[in-house]
């Protein structure tokens, strides 16, 4: 194609595109459909989880529409979500949020995937005073900015491993020791998420007066932590906590086996995404892993039924899932909150709906949802699962536990 021809083709193409994109200026409700908007990572490094989240949104939308939709006033509305691919980059996410709100007229937002993207988009929704219910940004720092229009259905990151500290204290008491005698070794990646997790651990540890004997930071491109584990081996702590995304979990699991680390209790994040059970087999037995949600929990609601029902429905709807990632479950929960809020507000006015969201107090298959003034969900605990014979079994908090905790770890003895 000649350069001029190419230019012309591009111009025509762009013209056509902009025609297609310029819908009605105010598209929050089209006929009997309420339009939600989301910039989500469909390509790039977060695409795996971005797609999980999108599937979660879609499943909930489908379910709600099948059940008659959202009833506001005397009218039943269907839900629909408009997505844009943020390519896993925060700057793009912010741009797209702006576009959703200004060009497409979306007045109700669903969150993107990851804390980083949420951090980029929240200022935009806040600026236009558009409520956003997000399900995938756990960073504590999202809820210290005084945002009024940001709500999150998931537990925040500082809760991830804090439960392992209370579990350690519980076990110490049961064994006739003082919680203050518990010695902790910590290895956390030096990134915002892991440092949040660390802050939660440090807070709870100091509450019990526990002693921190190793406190290592892990690098971003971690592939070896044997030096840290050598220290752990020498100092023999009672509890080892590790958080460094999936590479941290994989590296730790491999080297804990290789160095025969005999710490009686080990907790780490991202066990599932690192696939440590598949990779390292029996050596991972008795490792504790926090999770936002598990299909074995006895949560229930009127839409999906129990957590197990959701699990089944999800697998039947989408191909290729052996287990349902919690990222999908919490995305579905966010859509449920929207429906609930529309109906309680009995209005489509975004500010009335925002107030209704703030007053949410509902049980879902994903857990209880109630927002603090900062917008994070304070009603749902993180649960701790322990790998027992290759299965993830809920062991703490005791209210939701399906299995007793194995202590001390057998592997590594």
């Amino acid at each position, binding site marked *: 194609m000649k350069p001029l021809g190419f230019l012309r083709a591009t111009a025509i193409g762009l013209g056509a595109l902009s025609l297609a994109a310029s819908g009605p200026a105010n598209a929050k409700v089209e006929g009997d459909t309420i339009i939600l908007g989301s910039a989500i990572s469909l390509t790039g490094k977060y695409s795996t989880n971005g797609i999980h989240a999108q599937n979660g949104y879609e499943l909930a939308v489908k379910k709600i529409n099948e059940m008659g939709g959202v009833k506001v006033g005397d009218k039943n509305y269907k839900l629909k979500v408009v997505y844009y691919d943020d390519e896993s980059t925060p700057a793009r996410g912010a741009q797209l949020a702006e576009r959703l709100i200004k060009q497409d007229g979306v007045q109700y937002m669903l969150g993107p995937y990851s804390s980083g993207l949420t951090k980029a988009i929240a200022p935009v929704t806040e600026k236009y005073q558009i409520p956003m219910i997000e399900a995938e940004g756990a960073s504590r720092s999202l809820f210290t900015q005084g945002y009024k229009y940001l709500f999150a259905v998931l537990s925040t990151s500082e809760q991830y491993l804090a439960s392992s500290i209370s579990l350690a204290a519980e076990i110490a008491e049961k064994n006739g020791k003082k919680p203050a005698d518990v010695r902790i070794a910590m290895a956390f990646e030096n990134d915002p998420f892991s440092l949040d997790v660390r802050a939660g651990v440090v807070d709870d540890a100091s509450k019990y007066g526990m002693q921190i004997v190793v406190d290592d930071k892990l690098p971003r*491109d971690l592939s070896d932590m044997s030096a840290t584990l050598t220290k752990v081996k020498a100092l023999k702590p009672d509890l080892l906590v590790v958080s460094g995304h*999936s*590479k941290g979990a994989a590296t730790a699991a491999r080297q804990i086996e290789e160095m025969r680390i005999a710490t009686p209790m080990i907790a780490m994040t991202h066990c599932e995404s690192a696939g440590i059970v598949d990779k390292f087999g029996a050596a991972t037995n008795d490792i504790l892993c926090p999770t936002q949600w598990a299909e074995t929990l006895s949560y229930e609601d009127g839409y999906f039924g129990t957590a197990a029902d959701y699990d089944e429905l999800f697998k039947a709807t989408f191909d290729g899932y052996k287990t349902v990632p919690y990222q999908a479950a919490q995305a579905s929960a966010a859509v449920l909150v929207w429906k609930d809020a529309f109906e309680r507000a009995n209005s489509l006015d975004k500010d009335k709906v925002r107030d209704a969201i703030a007053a949410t107090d509902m049980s879902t298959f994903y857990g209880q949802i109630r927002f603090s003034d900062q917008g994070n969900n304070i009603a749902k605990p993180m649960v701790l699962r322990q790998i027992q014979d290759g299965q993830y079994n809920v062991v703490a908090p005791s209210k939701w536990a399906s299995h007793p905790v194995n202590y001390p770890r057998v592997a590594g003895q």
Partner: protein
Amino acid sequence: MLDNLNLLVLAPLLNVQLLLDGLFIGAIFALAAYGLALVWGVMNVKNLAQGDFVIMGGYIAYSTGELGIHPIFALIFAPVIMFGFGWAIYRLVISRVVDRDLFTSLLATFGIAIVIQQGLNLIYGSDVVTAQSGFAIRSILGGLVTVSDIRVVSFVLCAVLALGVVTFMKKSRMGQAIRATAQDPRAARVMGINTDRVYAFTFSLNAAICGAAGVLITMIWVIQPFFGITHSIRSFVIVTAAGFGNLPGVIVAGLGLGVAEQYGGFVLGAEFQQVTVVGMLLLVLMWRQVQQSRVRQVVR
């Protein structure tokens, strides 16, 4: 930091653990660095994609394991595949920049590195992977020190591979041609050596060596598409410290770097493990600057 030093004094056996871990992993660093020294010395191309070649080898080991074959057999496929890959990259890119200035080859190899990273990310995703050797783990010295057999095996294999490459360079016609080209490409050409072929072979040989190193790394550590850069830096530190004509130097520097990393990680914390590497590069560069000699360095 002082606590950690104190710990080393109180429990001297910890030194044994750190030393062993460092030496075993350092041997693999030395292997990859030798490949870099080869390309650098012969072609004067500073290959910034060195670490990414290593990671590619690692993914070949991972795929081998996924196919149900023991990943140690990847030590056969990986060098072969990587040799072919190296040849293709040479024909496609490197042959066009080999006689250009330093900056062009840096840019070109940097570009190759990015393409490899993103390619691996597309194929395998960004989560870390490993290859499981399933070899035994031994506790020695009263259980305080553990040695996994895979580390010992990889150490021995590194030595064998290095020996093989050295013998090849000394005895074979191609090896001699490579060394001749390194000494003086023009003279080599006059003597009837096809230097273009020599370059292609050298570059491919380097890729093959990296592939082997990657297989071993993946059975000991974990890999991810974007981990190549740290391995590139390690190779650069080692070659810069040793000089490219100096195989014993590369070995010593490689082992030393492995040990230094372990100590850095232990004393300063894991976060500073790789800082140790970069810090050493700085020191080495300063020291090189000081003792800069005009002696021509050649690959022996």
